[in-house]
Each structure stands twice: as structure tokens, then as C-alpha cells.
């Protein structure tokens, strides 16, 4: 599993207890049970601090990955938009404000560009929006390139959902 650096607010003061409500997000209760069953034992308190619904954008050309990530983040009470290509992602970015963008950098099979170009656009037009890059081509060269083009985090697929979740919640 990848080494994860916790974001702001991701530290904990106590562990969530199964079945016990630990706070609310967008008016909906979140229980320690929900966090524990996904293995989120070390960062439950960050949820207590969330008061507003946050929306994220996921960009991936693999529909099954999109469906899985959408389901996961919806379980975490986040609002999720999905895009399966570069143009769709830009269109959604232009119309909505996102707390974070998760993008697979290998989008070239659908569009004529890739996620690194998306990183350039996000850095230039929405510099306040953190970009998390996912890739199944995990070379150090690609990671350096992504980071130099504004990616805040770089994750190698396959990555556990709880690890992506920890990063995203840390950014909210």
C-alpha cells in the first residue's frame, strides 16, 4: 500500500466506535461504524469538523473505476461528479467548484490528450483546486512530471479506497 501523508485535519483525538455517531456532514449523521468497517480508524475526528457538503470531480476513462470511486465517495457523504475524458472534465470544471479533482493521467485512449494536460489546465485556471493524480503507469519520471505540473498527490494503481479517501478528506 502506498505511503500516505495525511492532510490538514486528518489527525485524530479518539477512535470512532462502531455504531456511535461521531458527527455530521451536510446534515447527515456519520457513525463510527461506517468509518470502522472501511478501516478508517485513524482519522475519524476529521469528519466531525466537516459542516458543509463538498463536491469532488473524478476523471477516469475506465467506467468500472469511475463507478467504484463514485460509490465510495458517495458513502462518505460527498457529492461526486464523474468525467470519462479530458473535454468532459474541463466542461464540469468550468461549471462547478470542486474541493478536489482525482484524475487518471492515462486518458489518451478516449481523447487526444492526457491527464497531465488536465493538470496544466487545473493549475492555470483553478489553482485553488487540489489535483490528485492516479496512474497505472507509475514511473518516477511520470510522477516528477505530474508534480511539476501541479499535482498535489500522486498515487499508483491499484490503490486502496481508504487511502484515497484519507487524502481527499484531508483536503476538505
Amino acid at each position, binding site marked *: 500500500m502506498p505511503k500516505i501523508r495525511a492532510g490538514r485535519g486528518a489527525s485524530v483525538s479518539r477512535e470512532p466506535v462502531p455504531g456511535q455517531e461521531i458527527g455530521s456532514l451536510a446534515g447527515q449523521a456519520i457513525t463510527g*461504524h*461506517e468509518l470502522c*468497517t*472501511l*478501516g478508517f480508524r485513524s482519522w475519524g475526528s476529521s469528519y466531525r469538523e466537516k459542516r458543509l457538503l463538498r463536491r469532488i470531480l473524478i476523471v477516469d476513462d*475506465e467506467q*468500472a*473505476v469511475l*463507478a*467504484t*470511486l463514485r*460509490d*465510495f465517495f458517495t*458513502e462518505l457523504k460527498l457529492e461526486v461528479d464523474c468525467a470519462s475524458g479530458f473535454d468532459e472534465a474541463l466542461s464540469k470544471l468550468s461549471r462547478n467548484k470542486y474541493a478536489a479533482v482525482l484524475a487518471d493521467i*492515462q486518458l489518451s485512449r478516449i481523447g487526444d490528450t492526457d491527464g497531465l494536460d488536465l493538470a496544466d489546465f487545473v493549475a492555470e485556471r483553478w489553482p485553488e483546486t487540489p489535483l490528485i493524480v492516479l496512474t*497505472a*503507469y507509475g514511473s518516477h519520471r511520470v510522477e516528477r512530471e505530474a508534480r511539476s505540473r501541479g499535482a498535489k498527490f500522486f498515487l*499508483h*494503481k*491499484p*490503490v*486502496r*479506497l*481508504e487511502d484515497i479517501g484519507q487524502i481527499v478528506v484531508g483536503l476538505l
Partner: protein
Amino acid sequence: MKDLAEDSATAERRRIAHDLSNQIMVVQGNLDLLRMKLEREERPWGNLELASDAVERCRVLTERLSALCRETP
């Protein structure tokens, strides 16, 4: 000619590795979601289907990889 064939085989292996990584993530992710929803006594057929389809795609990908290994020295 031999170099071209090797480049092509390398590119194909890379594509397979990429696709396998995606499918493994789908299987693992949906198993996590299944566990969580089953504990809430839900009926997460969608997650089961996604995981099952991904395993089937893994099977096809490993067949492609095996064929590639047989073809290239």
C-alpha cells in the same frame, strides 16, 4: 525487425499491466464496499457485479499475457 517486435511486445505488456491494475482496484474496492454494505444488511448486488466483471477481465488479460510470453522469447 526484431527490435520492432520487441517494442510492440513491451507496449502490449505495459497495456496489460495498466488494465490489470485498474481491474484489481475495482475488485478490491468493491469488496471493501460489499463488506461495509453487508454489515448494514444492504443487498449490494451492484458491487458484486462490478467485482465479478473485473475478475473476468483479469482472466482475459492474463490469457493475453500468457500468449504474449509464448510468442516472444
